[in-house]
C-alpha cells in the first residue's frame, strides 16, 4: 500500500482550507496543517485556550511561556490576533463562528459519528477537553487520522465502538490511504492515495465506500 506521510496528509487538508477561514486545529497531527497552507491564503487559527490568530513557534530568545496553544506548546500571535477568555473562546466554537475544525480520531462511522476522546481499553483517567464543544458547534469537521490502527484494527466503521464525541458531525476524513466524504449514503470516495486501488482500501475499511 502507498501511504501518505503525516506531512502529506496535513498538506492535503490544507488544500481544502479557503482564504479567510477561521480554523481550529486539534492537538497532535492537526497542528501541522498550518505549516502547509498554500501561499496567498490568510487563515486565522483559533486556540481554545484563548487566542484567535495563532502564529508559528517563537524565535529563540523570544519565547513566552504564557503564550501557548491548546497543545501547550509555545506559539506567537499573528497581526490581527486577539486574546479572550474561555467563555468567549467556546462561544466562538459552539456558536458556529469558527468555520472549520481539524481533529484527530480513534474511529469515524459512516453516519459521521466521531469517537476521539476515550477508548474502551484506556487505563488512564478520562479526558475530554474541548473536543465535544468543537463538534457541537463548528459546521465543518475535518478528520485527519491513520486509516487503520497500529494494531491493525479498522477505524472507519458502520458504527463506532468507542465512546462518542459527537453524533453525525464529521464532514470529511483524510487518511494515509484516502480522502472520504460523509455523504447521506455513507463514506463517499473523494480520492485514493495515488497507487492504491479501491478494493485494497475497501478491504481496510469497516463500512462500504461509495463511489
Amino acid at each position, binding site marked *: 500500500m502507498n501511504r501518505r506521510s503525516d506531512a502529506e496528509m496535513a498538506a492535503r487538508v490544507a488544500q481544502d482550507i479557503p*482564504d*479567510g477561514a*477561521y480554523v481550529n486545529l486539534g492537538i497532535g497531527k492537526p497542528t501541522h496543517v498550518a505549516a502547509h497552507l498554500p501561499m496567498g491564503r*490568510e487563515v*486565522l487559527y*483559533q486556540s481554545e485556550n484563548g*487566542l*484567535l*490568530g495563532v502564529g508559528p513557534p517563537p524565535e529563540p530568545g523570544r519565547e513566552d511561556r504564557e503564550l501557548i496553544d491548546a497543545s501547550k506548546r509555545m506559539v506567537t*500571535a499573528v*497581526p*490581527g*490576533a*486577539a*486574546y*479572550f477568555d474561555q*467563555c*468567549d473562546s*467556546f*462561544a*466562538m*466554537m*459552539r*456558536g*458556529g*463562528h*469558527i468555520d472549520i475544525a481539524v481533529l484527530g480520531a480513534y474511529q469515524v462511522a459512516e453516519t459521521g459519528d466521531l469517537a476521539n476522546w476515550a477508548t474502551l481499553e484506556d487505563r488512564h483517567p478520562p479526558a475530554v477537553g474541548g473536543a465535544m464543544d468543537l463538534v*457541537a*458547534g463548528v459546521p465543518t469537521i475535518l478528520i485527519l487520522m491513520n486509516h487503520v490502527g497500529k494494531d491493525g484494527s479498522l477505524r472507519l466503521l458502520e458504527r463506532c465502538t468507542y465512546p462518542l464525541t459527537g453524533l453525525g458531525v464529521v464532514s470529511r476524513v483524510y487518511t494515509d490511504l484516502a480522502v472520504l466524504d460523509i455523504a447521506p449514503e455513507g463514506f463517499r470516495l473523494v480520492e485514493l492515495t495515488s497507487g492504491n486501488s479501491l478494493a485494497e482500501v475497501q478491504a481496510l475499511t469497516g463500512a462500504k465506500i461509495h463511489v
Partner: protein
Amino acid sequence: MIDKTCADPVAAIQPIGDGASVMVGGFGTSGIPYGLLNALAEKGARDLTIISNNAGEGEAGIAALLKLGLVAKVICSYPRTPGSVWFERRYKAGEVALEVMPQGTLAERMRAAGSGLGGFFTPTGYGTKLAEGKETRVIGGRGYVFEPPLSADFALIRGETGDRWGNLSYHATARNFNPVMAMAARHSIAEVRQVSTEPLHPERVVTPGIFIASLCEYAVRP
C-alpha cells in the same frame, strides 16, 4: 487576505433588505451606529424588526426609521426615553408592534444565540407579568424563567477603532450592547470612529473580528 473594510456606511448596509431583523447597539445616545442607521433610512428597507435597548429618540437613528414608517416591530427593554416621540406616535397608532423584556434578559438571550446555547433559566421577572406564559422552574428554592436565544439577521455596531480583520475597541459606556450583538447576529456590520491601518493590540481587542462581517469608518461623534 482578510479585509473586512467597506468604503462607507451605504456600502456596508447594502445586504439589508425588506423584512430583515436588525440589532442596533447603543444605550441612550451612546454607542449608537448613527452612520449605518442614516444609510439604512436612506435606503428605505421596509418592514424591519429592530432589536435594541431603547426605541430611538429625537429625529435620528432608530427614530428616523420609525418616522419613515420602515419599522414593523421593536424588541427592546426601555422604549420610554424622553424624546422617543416617533416610537410613541407609531405605537399609539398601532403601526408598530412592541415586545418588551428585562434589559439583562435581552442581553443574555443575545449571548445565548451567539454562544450556541439552547436557552437558560433566569430569576429575572419570575412571578411578574413579563413571565406570563413562559416556562418556569424552581431550582434550589428560587423561581426561574426559561428564556430562549435571540438572534437576528443583522447587527449594527458602533466601535471606536477597528482594523481590517474586524477587531474592535470601544469608548467608555458606548460599549454597552455592541459586543454581545456582534456575537448574536448572523451578519454584523460595524461603523468605527477610526479604521486603523495597524492591527489592534491583541490584549486591547474587545470584539474579535470573527464576529464582524464588515466595517466602515464613520468619524462623527454623537
